[in-house]
Each structure stands twice: as C-alpha cells, then as structure tokens.
C-alpha cells in the first residue's frame, strides 16, 4: 500500500508552488518545465487541477518496462525510476494511462513522481492545502470522489438508456 497524495482541485489557486518545489527536488533549480506534478489550468471554468502519478497498485509503467527499471520504494510504496537501469526507450510514457511519466530532455531517461522518499515536497510547498500527503493505510480519498462521479454518471446513463 502506497503513501497517498490527496489533491483537492477546489482549493488550488494555480500558484505553481508545487511545480517549483518538485523541480527543485529533481534538478536543484527552479524549473517548472521539469516538474513531474503539473497544474492544469481551466481558466474559463475557474479550475486548477494539480495532477501527478497515481502510484497505481498494478502500475502499467512498471509492467511495460523491458529492463525492470521501475521499482517499488519500500519506504513510501512509490513506483520509482532506477536511472542506472533505464535505457530511455519511452515505453513507460506510452503505457501510463494518465500521462504522468515524463522523460528528461537530453538524457531521455524516464522521470516520474517518487513521492520524494515519503515526504512529498509539493505537499509541503502548497500554501492552500490543496495537496496533502495522505495516510498510507487510507487509500480512499484519492479516488473516492472520482469513483462516485463516474458511478453516478454510469447509473444515470443506464436509467436513460443512453448507455
């Protein structure tokens, strides 16, 4: 069971502090283009949605990697890239259904959220509490609201016969 990042888009103001913190951990510079958490901005809906790796239990990136370069961090449960093993084939970026695996310009090595070894910098940096590091034993909050929404739409579709 992995540590969870709980993200509440309604609380996000789009300030990009999470991207700055993430790129700082990755590169030692402030370089949002290298962040592996990305804030999606939907201006006209007044909605900002930070989005990063779900740390899937059955991770597609991990399954797709031909050289076993993606492993599970025993501390945080995060799926992490072993840079020494990675050959830069980009298969993981294609396999990920959520588009949250990136590659590093220049080296082509895979780059993804590793939950900072259990203390995610994005959650620390967020000024509004839109990103919090959740309790590892409680997996619910991360997917529950989304699941409810999906089911609600599914049931609605069944009732109207539009399915």
């Amino acid at each position, binding site marked *: 069971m992995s540590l969870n990042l709980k993200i509440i888009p309604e609380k996000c*103001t789009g300030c990009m*502090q999470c991207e700055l913190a993430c*790129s700082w951990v990755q590169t030692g*510079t*402030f*370089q949002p*283009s290298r962040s592996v958490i990305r804030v999606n901005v939907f201006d*006209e809906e*007044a909605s*900002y949605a930070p989005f990063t790796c779900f740390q899937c239990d059955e991770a597609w990136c991990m399954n797709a990697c031909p050289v076993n370069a993606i492993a599970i961090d025993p501390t945080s449960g995060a799926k992490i890239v072993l840079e020494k093993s990675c050959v830069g084939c980009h298969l993981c970026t294609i396999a990920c259904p959520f588009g949250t695996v990136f590659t590093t310009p220049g080296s082509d090595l895979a780059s993804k959220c590793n939950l900072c070894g259990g203390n995610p910098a994005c959650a620390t940096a967020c000024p509004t509490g839109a990103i919090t590091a959740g309790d590892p034993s409680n997996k619910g909050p991360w997917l529950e609201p989304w699941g409810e929404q999906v089911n609600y739409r599914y049931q609605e579709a069944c009732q109207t016969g539009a399915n």
Partner: protein
Amino acid sequence: MDGWHGKLLRVNLSTGASKVEDIPDAWLKDYIGGRGLADRYLYEEMDPRVDPYSPDNKLIFATGPLTGTPIPCGARYMVVTKGALTNAITTSNSGGHWGPELRFAGYDLLILEGKAPKPVYLFIYDDVVEVRDAKNFWGKTVSLTEDGLRDELGIPQLRVACIGPAGEKLVRFACIMNDKHRAAGRSGVGAVMGSKNLKAIAVRGTKGVSIAEPEKFMKAMWAMRGRMAVSPGRMGFTELGTAATIDLTNAFGGCPTRNFESGQFEHAENLNGNAIKDTRMVANKACFACTIACGRVTRLAGDISDKYLVNMHPRNWKTAGEGPEYEAAWALGADTGVGDLDAVLKANWLCNDLGMDPISMGATLAAAMELYETNVIDDRHVELPLKFGSGDALVRMVEATAYREGFGDELAEGSKRMGDKFLHPEIFMGVKGQEFPAYDPRGFQGMGIAYATCNRGACHLRAWTPGIETSGAMDPHTPVGKAEWVAAEQNRSTSHDATGICLFTGAAGGTLDDLAACTAAATGVSFDTDDFVKIGERTWNIERLWNLKAGLTSKDDNLPERLLKVPHKSGPAKGVVVHLDQMLPPYYKTRGWDEEGVPTKEKLSELGLAAIG
C-alpha cells in the same frame, strides 16, 4: 553571476534582428534588476525627448532576480518606456505567469527597438527568437489572441503578453495584458507597443532559474512564507481581495466620487470585498508562486446578457472572468457613480479583454460625465446620455473607447487631452497627464504629495499612505511629516519592483529584511535593507533625471485646483484641502534636490550618479 542570468535579449523590430547581450555586473549590483535596471538602460540608450510613438522610443520588459523563484509572489515583471499618456518615464508592473516564463527562457531583460513595418508578434522559446507575422491576430481581443497563439504555435504551456484592440488603436491608456487578466496597466504602455506594430510576445522557457546559496535562500524564503501565512493582512487579501479597501477609504472620506465631487460613495457596499465575495466570486486565483491569491474569479449572476448591451461579446461573458480589483471597482463604479456590481463587472471584463487601464478609463469617463452634466457636451456629441450613475453609458463607452467609435475617440485620448479640447481643463483629475487612482488626497493628505511627485504621473503604488494615516500614527488631514515619509517609502517600495516580487507582500506580513535576505541568498551579493533603500533612492533619482531631460519641471509636480481649493462639503474630510505648498518644499529638501526639484551635485555623487547626471 548566480541568481541573475546576466543576459538581455535585444530585438530590433524594424529589421527583425535579435541578439543576446551581457548585462554589466556593476549595473546588476547597483540596480538589482527589474525597474531599476530597466531605468538605467533607458537612461543610457534613449533620448527622453522623442515622441512616445516614435520608433526611437524603446520598450523594455524587465524581471528581477527573484522573479520565477518560490519566494511568495515572485511573479512580477516591469514594463519601462516613455508613456503615451504621460510623456514621462513609465514603469508599469504586472504579475501572472509571463514574467517568470521569460526568466525561464534565460533572459533578465527584453529590450524592443524600432517599429515593425507590418503587424508582428515575437516568439521566444529559450534560444529561439522569431519575429512572426501577426495578421491572424491583429484586431483580436486579448483572450482570443492568447488562445490563438497557443493553437498556432502548438505549445499549450505558452505564456502570452499582448495588446488588445485598444493598444492597436493607440488608446492613450492601453495596457499590455498577460495571462488574459493580468495587466501592465498604467500610462499607456500598450499604446507604445501598438505603435511598434507588435501584437504579442509569446514565451516558453524551459531553462529554469538557479540561485547562488540554496540553503540560505530556502531558509529565508520559508521564514518569510511563515510570517505571511499567519499575517492578518495576508488573510484579509485572501478573504476579501483588494476591493475591501473601499470600506476604508469611504470611512475616511477618501473615496473620490463623481469625478472628485465628494469623498464618499453612497453605494460603496455594493462594490466592496464582501459584495464581490458573497455574490459574484467563484474562486481565488493566484499569480505565479503567490501564497496570497488575492485575485477574484467572478461570474455574472444568472443571465443578464440583455442588460448593459454592447456590440461585441467576449467569450467569457457567460462563464468567468476576473476582477474587479479595488482600483477598477472605484474607477468604473464610484468615480462614475455607478453602484451596480454587474455593470462594473462587465466594464472591467471589457477593459481586460480589449486591453485598457480601467483606472484611466473610468476616470476619463467620469470627466466626460461631468462635461455632459454641465452641458458642455450634449446628445449631439454622444450616442447615449453620459449621466453619472448610468451603467449603460459605462459599459458601452468602454467598448466605444477601445475601438475609438464616436465619442469614444475623444475618451481614448485621456481626460487631460479631452479637457483641453473642450476648453475645460479643470475636469482633468490627475498629475502629469495620468488620472488619479482611488484615493482622495483631501481625505489622505499624504497621497497628495505621493501623487504630485511620482515619476510616472499620479500613482498609488510608489507610496501608499492611507495605511499609516488611518493607523493613528499620523493625522490624515494635516501635511505634517508626510513629505518625509513619502520620500522614504518611495525608496523602500522600489525594492519590490527591482527584485521582481509583489508589493502586496509588504502589507501581508513580508518585510524588507526578508526581501533583502532572500535577494542576498539568491544572488550571492550581500544586500541588506540599507542597500535596498539606497538602490531605491538611486532608481528614483535616475527616473527624475530622465524626466527633467524629457522636459518636465517642478511645475509638473502639481495637483489640480479642485484638490487645492475646493473642499468636500460633507463627510469626515469636510472642509479639508490639500496643502501641497507645505509638503513639496520639505519633500525636495528630504530628497536632496534644489527648489526647482533638480537633484543636487552632492546628492548625485552620494548615489554614484555624478558621472551621468
């Protein structure tokens, strides 16, 4: 040097040629960046006497060493040029995400020269710099331009600073808009950009920003963030935004109403922070790295598309836009006497989408309304009655001004030129051609000297006195001590503009010591607070020298007769006029200037400016 890139990008729009130059280390240390550094370049390279619309006028976009770092509100960039409205040096500041993106592309400064032979836009992707044809975007509104550029270039992360139709039509108070709703607003920088046939600057930067002493920087940054997190000022900004200020100014009789006829607006509660929050606001919005998030994302209530009709409909009419901030709510609301928030919202969105400064727009319209009410102009001049309090007139005239339709053509010249044309110069409420923002100096005496002496014309951002004047430390109605305080504050506030962070941090728990500590750690140069004050003074003096060369004199450090001779008839500021004659001499003395407002030789050599003064 670490902290700065030390690079500037120079683009000649006449030829389309661009080159990257090194910025001298000595200038970085003497001016830090942003406003100071850009002032120095403008002073060095440009003849201040040229016309603002001349190809010889230069347009400088400047970031500071903290722009693009996670220091709270490190989002600001500065536009420095000769203002179309003021004919003086102008320094307009904006937030959003564009400034940091320019830094991420690897440049501290962007200097634009010449004039493109046909409409173009500038595309910057790290080292790639292209001047491209803007025929698809000329005439388009700000939001359509920004989205259109993302589509044309195929880069979703693109950040765009552009002008709207107002800038193209050389409306004297046109803005440069970035991220759709953020504006380098005042003094007509957008008109200067329009005169260069430059529609937009689209930037994508992937290089990032490095800093000199990371551990020290993170420690100083977190200390500042911690103080801001618990600051009541910060909480006020987050909760109610800037619009809450109208309660303060109204209570002290300092909220100018109906073109400065009175100092209290009877419908202020319709436009204040609570009204916006409770009825129209849907979310807070932050600029880059901002931990305050004072921006208001707003929606009109229900369908009011049949009210306040205009010819064009911005796409966001029925979804969401931003604002109004206090200044916009005052100018489009109290100053024109309009007490309906929906009319103010529509007008504000139109200003944003068409690229105009709502302060000068509202104030100019208020002046026109005074002309109409006093029968100087009548229905032969205007398409609908310009009565104080008319929301229809407000919204329609904003559109007409941007496109220079009908009487909008007169409004587009600003209230000074309009007043002169109709032989009623007394309707102009401003300094150096620029309209006043939202504080009546009869209610806040200190704002009188702050307005009169600001290098870019009437401006509330260089020294904001209502805070100290209402705190009990000073009497708002006497001139005692104001000149000295304003001169010192003008020096202090420059640090924010030079380093690239938001002025609001000062009112939200961040101190100048924090700023100095962060800048020192970021750059590796041992700046302290005293250095910052000195740099602020140097910047102020170089702007003054520039203005003197441009032909301005101490006669331009003046206020309109209405403020000096006509007191309010009622309210807390009843019977008070502005005692500028008692504040200007001590101000010059504090500054180390002679009676004509010219910096003395001693002052200049003290500031290291002897060689150029």
